[in-house]
């Protein structure tokens, strides 16, 4: 019989840094850190000597000098006399505009397609599968370029829309017609849509050199207030239902609260539309939207919608059949089963991939460079970079902005995810 002998206390030897698991992790970490620091030092060193070779320095002063180029689509006032910083701002807003519109359209389309793909209708389910497979297996760049090419090459030139008195006499139609009861004209140059105008606008206020339209602000506040009151109404109805078992009718109150205030406000300000009209060689009046914007939004939406559809489908499939069967056994109708039982549970599976889709949409807007859409990549990373030759500064700034955007979107998404996820201990 042997006795367990306490091992002799070992003295620290140098070899233990490599062969003893207690110390090895320190050795590895120190070596990794040293290598990374050496690598960074090497990069910095190279950068300094390269900059010195070219007689350049790192300097962000160019942001306050004159930009000198035009941008078609500008959400804040901008002329070619404005600074490069202003151009950056215009570009950033253009990026956000595309990302925002595309996210909304992609969500609506994606959720619809995802649910329809699970439909019992054989034909519709197959069609949706074909749509999803075709669009997600072909590069997004192809869809963007193809959409843009169709808009700018297959659409008629403005003069085809012309109606002359002789044509009216002869009862002929012009070569091209406007869509939606003569309100929208899509030519090979741009899409012209009606512009909402107010007779009695509230005017504008400058906020950090960005003009803010007070009428729009007021409308937004009114809509927000209506939604808040509406939510209170719903809560009250729910309280009554739980106390008495009978839910009071609220639908006409909801409609009134949601629609009446904004309608009254807009009528009081005298809302009317200015329609695009063919004058001379092009359409005048209304809002003219560049094809690069339309094509980018459409292509990104239909492409990303396929990913959202798959996320929605996976989420709904992840809920076990027993849940909906239990709901049916309780006597819930299919619609309420979906709303009250399946969707709340599916949401926590659906939301995380949706967040990463919104991030992808934001990052994919940079593909607008292929159809010369002047977003952040086009202004700061394109023309400004080429004009000033400050590659390092422009690229660093752009990466920083995108990292910040990603961080903001993912934290908003995570906050929402935390609110819908299963509460467990």
């Amino acid at each position: 019989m042997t006795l367990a002998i306490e091992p002799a206390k070992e003295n620290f030897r140098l070899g233990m840094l490599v062969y003893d698991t207690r110390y090895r992790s320190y050795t590895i970490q120190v070596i990794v850190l040293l290598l990374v620091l050496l690598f960074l030092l090497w990069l910095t060193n190279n950068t300094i000597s390269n900059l010195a070779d070219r007689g350049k320095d790192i300097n962000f002063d160019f942001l306050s000098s004159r930009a000198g180029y035009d941008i078609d689509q500008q959400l804040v006032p901008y002329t070619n006399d404005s600074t490069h910083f202003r151009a950056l701002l215009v570009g950033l807003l253009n990026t956000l505009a595309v990302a925002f519109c595309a996210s909304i359209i992609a969500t609506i389309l994606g959720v619809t397609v995802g649910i329809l793909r699970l439909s019992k209708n054989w034909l519709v389910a197959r069609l949706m599968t074909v749509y999803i497979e075709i669009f997600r297996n072909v590069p997004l760049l192809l869809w963007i370029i193809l959409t843009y090419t169709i808009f700018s090459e297959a659409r008629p030139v403005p003069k085809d829309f012309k109606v002359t008195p002789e044509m009216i006499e002869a009862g002929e139609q012009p070569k091209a017609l406007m869509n939606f009861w003569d309100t929208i004209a899509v030519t090979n140059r741009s899409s012209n849509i009606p512009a909402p105008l107010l007779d009695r606008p509230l005017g504008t206020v400058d906020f950090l050199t960005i003009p803010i339209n007070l009428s729009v602000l007021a409308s937004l506040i009114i809509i927000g207030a209506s939604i808040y009151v509406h939510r209170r109404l719903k809560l009250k109805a729910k309280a009554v239902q739980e106390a008495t078992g009978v839910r009071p009718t609220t639908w006409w109150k909801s409609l009134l609260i949601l629609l009446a205030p904004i309608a009254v406000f807009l009528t009081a300000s005298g809302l009317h539309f200015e329609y695009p009209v063919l004058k001379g060689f092009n359409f005048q009046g209304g809002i003219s939207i560049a094809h690069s914007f339309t094509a980018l939004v459409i292509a990104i939406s239909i492409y990303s919608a396929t990913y959202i559809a798959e996320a929605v489908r996976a989420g709904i499939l992840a809920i076990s059949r027993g849940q909906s069967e239990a709901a049916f056994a309780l006597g819930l109708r299919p619609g309420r089963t979906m709303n009250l039982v399946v969707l709340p549970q599916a949401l926590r599976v659906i939301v995380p991939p949706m967040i990463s889709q919104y991030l992808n949409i934001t990052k994919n807007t940079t593909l607008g460079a292929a159809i010369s859409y002047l977003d952040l990549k086009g202004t700061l990373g394109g023309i400004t970079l080429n004009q000033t030759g400050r590659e390092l500064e422009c690229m660093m700034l752009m990466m920083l902005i995108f990292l910040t955007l990603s961080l903001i979107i993912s934290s908003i998404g995570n906050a929402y995810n935390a609110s819908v996820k299963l509460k467990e201990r």
Partner: protein
Amino acid sequence: MSSSFVRTEMLPQQTPPVGESGIIKWLRENLFSGWFNSILTLLALGALYNLIQILLPWLSNSVWNAESLRECRDIVIAQSGEGASGACWAMVRVRWNQFLFGLYPVEEYWRPTTAFALMFVALAPVLYYGLKRPSAQLVGVVSVLMVLALFGLGTDFGHIFLMGLVMAALTALAWVAPKKLVFVTLLFPLVAFYLLWGGSVWGPIGTLAGFVILGAVWWVAQRKLGVVVAAGVALVVAVLWWLGVQTSITTALHTAMPMELPYVRSDDFGGFLLAFVIGITAITASLPIGILLALGRQSNMPIVKSLSIGFIEFFRGVPLITVLFSANFMLLYFLPPRTNLDLILRVIIVVIIFASAYIAEVVRGGLAALPRGQYEAADALGLDYWQAQGLIIMPQALKISIPGIVSSFIGLFKDTTLVALVGLMDPLQGVTKIVRADTAWKGIYWEPYIFVGAIFFFFCFSMSRYSMYLERKLKTDHR
């Protein structure tokens, strides 16, 4: 006493009602169950009808032989009358080589073709390690296809014969000793690099010699210094060889004994050749790097962990285009002065880095999905870190993450089209732009995009189906 009627004989079996059997039942259940579904069906049928009405004449009037779009249109009108529409696939036929190879010199087309064929030989041991029949079958079929393709591309007979001989030898090797094909896999990167770019044969041989030196030094040193230290020493020696000695020796050898293939400039790479070179290199390299990053992120060493997180989150937070532009503009600042790194090489490096960040996140998901007990069981067996990872953790984690990994690969392959934005000639932007700028084909847009899209669709769709097959094949749970 009550009397009741009791039937004593069986009734003959009756056929089900017409509405409850056959096609009518199927239609009622699948297309017209309820008013909502009926409306959906009718809408879908309407959409389908419209689509077919436009597509069918367009496709059936396709023109395959013409020299310009004008000619195409004339042929369509001559065939089907005024106002008829027809696809002009003649463009694809005329520009086929350019779509495949870009501006790669015509007389060198055999090189990328051979490299592509060799890739399957290199893949054979990965797919069927040590299996005689499937390896030989794969290599044999690829050899025959390669020779046919070389004939189709109009390669001179000498090269066809030579390459056919090489492939025949490899087929024989696959039949005799399938395990030896691993050497082809190991050599493939250098061989493919040499075949594609050409230049002096001594460059790749010098690089290869570095690896041989690495192995030799390690083997000699490990007896005295132990495995870990020997590996470090061998690495240092090899790096010294690659950075310090290699260039002068290979230059000397080249002047003494010049052996070379004509050098092809990176600007000439284009079309699907470029997409494949970037896509395949990035896919193969990003997987191991991504796994290492995922392990780093899961490790309990704080410095390694935070470095990995920083790396992964940075590259996942910025769009690929900004990274590609950095390869174009910024890498020149970061590398030592007067380094002249090729644009394709720079793009490949940043695409690898970018893709490995995504792979790392996918693999991390797989690692996190493993039950804690698996790690503890590995520890309890007394396995060390790499043994536990290699034998217990990774096989399971990678299996879980197959769908994610493959969809990252698909995304990566689709993203190779973005290199057009830094001036490389990808099939989508680069080649199509050149074709559309040609006066003969001015105004053509559906056909080139449908063609390029169809090829991308074929590869991406096959990849996703293969991953589904792999998932089913590797499934071990009993459901």
